[in-house]
């Protein structure tokens, strides 16, 4: 990074923020919810209920003793009708707890605001809330909030960039739950002992910037930072660089350079728990895409099947050919709309055949566009060539593991090569120690 580069490389992707002005609507309780035991990075939870048990809203139904994990709560009141193995969208077998809702939404006993008075009780509250990184990675929040060098952390960044096209759920959260957001941030700063709070928002969300700035005008420790509306501003490493000018050395974590980053929705969910004791059981989700009849922002219970959510948006307008969990840049294409909403979902997008057609790949012409686009300043085309030769030393020299899979390289490639995907495989190859 030379002095000429104030910003990291980035790309311009059409925003398609169609649902910006759609205030969040609450979806009614579905007949059944399907709760996955793997909704976070780390150890899977074990069901703590059995078939036939009656459960209430907010009751823990899955937990584990492992440190890197987060408990799973029932989003409905009703009866556990099945606990079985099922294939998740990531292709792993996972335990799914099915609960038939009785639609009374009776709240579990013991749901009351937790006592939070110091760091330890705050962190306990974070874990009890079942919170994971809602921006996408689903890393258990209580682990992230408790790094070894917490006293060295001087900046807490809230990610409100929302750089993925289509998605407006975080924007709606900032507009609708701004009190919770600011109070959540203040609590986090207070109990973790962090001096500075930054809320990073892309300039295409001007009303949110104005509203939050007005709210924190008497709080000098909190800054609302306007970001350039380019992709991937919301990537953790990019956001940290924009907010602090620091970059994370390879293999290190944000806390190592004195920063913790959390998503807007995560902080709102945390503050909701602190104020009411209700853990993470619902999520604001943007439902959009050219196959959806009425795109909108929906507050939906975790575990709701995706087709029910889409029916709530008046169903499909065209035959869907590709359904995404998440945005078009980093979201995952799912193969069954019967899958259920999980904690870190922020969008369900459905598209028609034309959108789903994957362009034909041609030969690399060495144009260097991928190299110029990479926010991590890697050389994707060279990584792809090294991976084709299964050349482990070359891949390590090219720092393939630094790739955050943002997809900029694939986006700009005139040869339509799946560079991001190749890089992902290269990372796997390096992790496995280069076994052919």
């Amino acid at each position, binding site marked *: 990074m030379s002095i000429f580069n104030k910003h990291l490389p980035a790309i311009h992707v059409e925003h398609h923020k169609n649902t910006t002005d759609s205030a969040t609507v609450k979806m009614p309780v579905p007949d059944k919810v399907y709760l996955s035991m793997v909704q976070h990075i780390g150890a899977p939870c074990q069901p703590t209920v059995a078939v036939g048990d009656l459960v209430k809203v907010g009751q823990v139904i899955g937990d584990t003793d492992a440190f890197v994990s987060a408990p799973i709560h029932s989003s409905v009141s009703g009866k556990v009708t099945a606990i079985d193995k099922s294939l998740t969208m990531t292709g792993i077998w996972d335990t799914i707890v099915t609960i038939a809702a009785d639609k009374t939404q009776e709240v579990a006993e013991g749901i009351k605001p937790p006592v939070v008075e110091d760091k330890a009780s705050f962190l306990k509250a974070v874990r009890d809330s079942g919170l994971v990184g809602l921006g996408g990675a689903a890393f258990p929040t209580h682990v992230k909030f408790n790094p070894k060098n917490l006293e060295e952390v001087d900046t807490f960044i809230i990610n409100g960039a929302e750089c993925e096209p289509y998605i407006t759920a975080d924007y709606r959260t900032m507009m609708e739950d701004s009190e919770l957001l600011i109070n959540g941030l203040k609590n986090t700063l207070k109990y973790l002992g962090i001096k500075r709070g930054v809320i990073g928002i892309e300039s295409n969300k001007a009303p949110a910037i104005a509203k939050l700035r007005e709210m924190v005008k008497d709080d000098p420790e909190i800054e609302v930072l306007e970001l350039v509306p380019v992709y991937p501003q919301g990537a953790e490493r990019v956001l940290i660089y924009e907010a602090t000018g620091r970059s994370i050395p390879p293999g290190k974590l944000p806390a190592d350079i004195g920063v913790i980053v959390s998503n807007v929705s995560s902080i709102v969910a945390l503050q909701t728990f602190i104020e009411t004791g209700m853990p993470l059981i619902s999520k604001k989700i943007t439902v959009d895409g050219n196959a959806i009849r009425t795109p909108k922002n929906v507050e939906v219970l975790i575990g709701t099947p995706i087709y029910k959510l889409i029916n709530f948006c008046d169903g499909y307008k065209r035959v869907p050919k590709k359904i995404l969990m998440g945005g078009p840049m980093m979201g995952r294409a799912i193969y069954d709309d019967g899958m259920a909403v999980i904690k870190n979902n922020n969008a369900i997008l459905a598209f028609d055949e034309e959108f789903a057609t994957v362009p034909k790949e041609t030969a690399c*012409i060495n144009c260097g566009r991928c190299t110029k686009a990479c926010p991590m300043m890697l050389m994707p085309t060279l990584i792809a060539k090294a991976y084709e030769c299964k050349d482990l030393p070359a891949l390590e020299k090219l720092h393939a593991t630094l790739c955050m899979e943002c997809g900029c390289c694939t986006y700009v490639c005139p040869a339509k090569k799946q560079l991001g995907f190749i890089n992902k495989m290269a990372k796997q190859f390096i992790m496995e120690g280069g076994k052919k």
Partner: protein
Amino acid sequence: MGRYMQGNLVVSPSPHVMDNITTTGIMRDVLIALAPAFVMSGVIFGSRAILLTITCIVSAVVFEWGFRIVTKKEQTIGDLSAAVTGILLGFNLPSTLPYWMAVVGSFVAIVVVKQIFGGIGQNFANPAITARIVLLVSFTTPMTTWSLPNRIIEASDAVTGPTPLGILSMGTDLGSLPSNMDLFLGYVGGSLGETSAIALLIGGIYLILRKVIEPSIPVAFIGTVFVFALLAGQDPFFHIFAGGVMLGAFFMATDYSTSPLTTPGKIVFGIGCGVLTMVIRLFGSYPEGVSYAILLMNILTPHIDNMSRRKIYGGGKK
């Protein structure tokens, strides 16, 4: 509404949206950028210049098409890169060259330099430049018999004559050097597409505006020639407008597969091209050195790429 599941839905890796840029689109832009110089070649050297360039384009496309068929590979003429190579080769020939020699040039460019090494993106040297050099050493006399622009022919009755760089190289008749304005417009002897600096400049600026090329290589190349000429006590404007500098800097040295990936690498590459061009012009036995300079730098490209790896985010060691 019905459910949609496995078999009905496309599952593919992210990202699920892509820019609408394609290889064909890039090549189309290069063809558009070459159009002004193509028109000027007809204005300056007459219809034979146009026919010779068309011969190169057609034969280049036919050779590529035939090679892909013979080797049972997917057809690639649709990406227009063969047409670009053809037009660039044509631009590097004197307008009087026999047509069959131009066809030989296309064969060298497309079959020997490009396809045998694996096709688009795989060649280590610029096909058009290599073909020009092969023709130059094979058919030296026809390749160095420069027809003069129509305007000069009317004035002097001569049909052929030396290029401005040729005059400079011989050093005997410096008074007959054309004005810088004639050089800039292209009314001088030379390869049919290289003489009109203004037409090439317009095309080059179009490519930069369309973000097909970065300005780094042309600026470094032309800038180096300018400074070198200045230091050598010669007219720097003469050196940047004469010969193949404009054509080479904007259209040949910027060839993606044979130039470095990173901006610092491109600058080193451009400076190298400029220095070699001027060394050949001032101290070599050839009057012009652009094609040799670019070819030599093409060969150095992998090494420049190795030495100009970017500093990654977080400043990891290489």
